[in-house]
C-alpha cells in the first residue's frame, strides 16, 4: 500500500499530547500511583504532585491555587458551573426563579446544559444573537438582563469559527451592573479554545467561573478544570468523597492533573507570542492560497477578532462531509459543520447564527492549525483540497 502523507488540521477537535506532557505524566501511573487523599507516603507524593500542578495552573490564570478545581473535561466544567450555580441559588433562595443569558453560538456543553435546566423548569434562558461575523454584541447582552438574571455564560473563542468574544468588555459591563443590583450576576466563560492563544488572567477578564480542558492544549483527554472565584459556591453534581471542598468529589486523576498542568505550563513558557504569530502566518497564507486557487469560497467569522489557528470556509456547490471523506483518504484531517456530519441533519447552529443559508452551511469546512503544523502541511492540504473540491463539483448536477 502506498503510504499517504498525514496532515492533522483538526486541532480544535483535539490535539496530540506533547511528548513533554506525556513524559511528565508517566511516573504517576506506575511508580507514584498513590491516592492523593491517603495519609501514607504514596499518598503524600501524589498530593505534592497535585498541589504543584494546581499552583502552575493558578499562575497561568493569575488566581489562587484554591480557586482551581479539576474535572473530567470542559463538558463537565460547563455543567458544573451552570447547574452547580443554579442549584445552589435555588437552594439558598427557595421559590426564586433564576434567569440565565448565553450566546447563541455556545458549545453544546453549555447550550444543552441550559436547555436541560429550562426543560425542567429550573431556570429561564435568553439566547443572545451574534453579528453576521460571529461576535456577541455587549449591548444586546445588557438588553437581555432582567431583575432575576444570575448568570451570563459566553465562550471566549468559538470552536467552529474561531471568533474571539469580548470577554473583558462583558466582564467589566457585568461588574458595573452588579454595583447597582440586589441580585448579583455571575459571569462564566468556556475558555476551552482560548488557552493556547488568548490572555486568560481571570481578574483581567472579570469572570467568576472559567472552564478549560486538557486535550485542546496538547494535554491528555479526560481531564479539565474550572476556575471558581473565591466566595462563589456551587452545588456539586456528584456526591461521594470529600475531595475538592465537596464541590467535585472523586479520587484525584493525578497523572491527568500533572499532564494538564504541564500542558498549561508549556503554553505560558515557550514564546507564546512568537508561536501565535507563526501559526497566524501559516493560517493567513492558507486562506490566501485557497482563495486564489478555488472559486466560490466564502470565509465565515470575523477575520480580525479571531483565534490565529482557525479558518472556516464554505465552498459553494460542495457538501462538507464528502469533502472531509475525500481529504481523509489523502491523509488529511479537517472537519465540517454540514448537517450530514452531525447525525441530526441540522446544519451547525453556529453557522445558522451567522445567518448563513442552510445550502451554504452544508459546504462548510473548518481547518484548525496547531503547534505541530508546518508550511509543507499547508501546501499539501491546499493542493489536495483544490483537487477534492474540483472533483465534487464535477459530480454535482448543479
Amino acid at each position: 500500500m502506498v503510504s499517504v502523507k498525514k496532515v492533522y488540521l483538526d486541532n480544535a477537535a483535539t490535539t496530540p499530547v506533547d511528548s513533554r506532557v506525556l513524559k511528565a505524566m508517566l511516573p504517576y501511573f506506575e511508580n507514584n500511583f498513590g491516592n492523593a487523599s491517603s495519609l501514607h507516603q504514596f499518598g503524600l507524593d501524589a498530593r505534592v504532585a497535585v498541589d504543584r500542578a494546581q499552583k502552575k495552573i493558578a499562575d497561568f490564570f493569575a488566581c489562587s491555587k484554591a480557586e482551581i478545581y479539576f474535572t473530567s473535561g470542559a463538558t463537565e466544567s460547563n455543567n458544573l458551573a451552570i447547574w452547580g450555580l443554579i442549584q445552589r441559588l435555588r437552594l439558598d433562595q427557595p421559590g426564586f426563579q433564576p434567569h440565565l443569558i448565553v450566546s447563541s453560538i455556545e458549545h453544546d456543553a453549555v447550550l444543552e446544559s441550559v436547555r436541560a435546566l429550562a426543560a425542567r423548569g429550573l431556570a429561564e434562558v435568553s439566547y443572545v444573537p451574534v453579528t453576521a461575523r460571529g461576535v456577541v454584541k455587549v449591548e444586546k447582552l445588557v438588553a437581555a438582563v432582567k431583575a432575576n438574571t444570575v448568570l451570563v455564560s459566553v465562550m471566549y473563542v468559538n470552536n467552529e469559527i474561531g471568533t474571539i468574544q469580548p470577554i473583558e468588555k462583558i466582564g467589566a459591563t457585568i461588574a458595573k451592573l452588579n454595583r447597582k443590583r440586589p441580585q448579583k450576576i455571575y459571569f462564566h466563560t468556556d475558555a476551552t479554545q482560548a488557552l493556547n492563544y488568548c490572555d486568560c488572567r481571570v481578574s483581567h477578564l472579570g469572570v467568576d467561573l472559567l472552564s478549560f480542558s486538557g486535550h485542546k492544549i496538547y494535554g491528555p483527554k479526560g481531564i479539565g478544570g474550572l476556575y471558581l472565584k473565591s466566595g462563589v459556591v456551587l452545588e456539586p453534581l456528584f456526591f461521594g468523597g470529600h475531595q475538592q471542598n465537596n464541590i467535585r468529589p472523586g479520587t484525584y486523576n493525578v497523572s491527568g492533573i500533572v499532564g494538564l498542568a504541564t500542558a498549561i505550563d508549556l503554553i505560558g513558557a515557550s514564546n507564546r507570542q512568537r508561536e501565535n504569530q507563526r501559526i497566524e502566518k501559516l493560517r493567513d497564507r492558507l486562506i490566501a492560497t485557497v482563495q486564489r486557487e478555488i472559486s466560490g469560497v466564502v470565509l465565515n467569522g470575523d477575520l480580525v477578532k479571531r483565534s490565529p489557528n482557525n479558518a472556516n470556509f464554505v465552498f459553494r456547490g460542495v457538501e462538507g462531509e464528502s469533502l472531509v471523506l475525500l481529504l481523509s483518504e489523502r491523509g488529511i484531517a479537517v472537519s465540517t459543520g454540514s448537517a450530514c456530519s452531525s447525525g441530526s441533519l441540522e446544519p451547525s447552529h453556529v453557522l445558522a447564527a451567522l445567518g448563513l443559508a442552510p445550502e451554504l452551511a452544508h459546504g462548510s469546512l473548518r481547518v484548525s492549525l496547531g503547534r505541530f503544523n508546518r508550511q509543507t502541511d499547508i501546501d499539501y492540504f491546499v493542493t489536495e483540497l483544490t483537487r477534492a473540491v474540483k472533483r465534487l463539483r464535477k459530480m454535482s448536477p448543479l
Partner: protein
Amino acid sequence: MYSEKVLDHFHHPRNQGKMKAADGIGQVGNPVCGDIMKIYIKVGQNADSVPIIEDIKFETLGCGAAIATSSMLTEMAKGKTIDEALKIGKLEIAQELGGLPEAKLHCSILAHDGLKAAVADYRQNKNKS
C-alpha cells in the same frame, strides 16, 4: 461510521456523469436539505421487447452516503426491466451497501425516488411523442 462498501462506492462511484440524449431524467432533493440527485436513464428493449434500463448515470451533490447510494442504485438498476427496477425497495439500496447509519437512511430513499422520477420522466416523454 461507513461500511467498506459505502466508502468504495463513494471513492470509486460507478456510472457517474452526465448522459447525452437521455430518455428520462429525474432530479430529487434540494440544496437546503443538502442532497441533490440527478438520475439519467437510457431505455432499450430486451429479447422479449420489454423496456429495460439499458444505461443509467447519476450526478449527485451530497454527503458520502448520498454519493454511495446513487452509485449503488445505478449498479442495481442497470440491465433490469423498468418494472423490475422500480421494485428496488426504498431501503434495499442501503442493505446492498451493507447498511447505513440511521441518520443516512434517507439517502437510500432519495436514490429510490430519483429512479422513480427518471422513469416517470421517460414515460411522460414517450406519451408526448
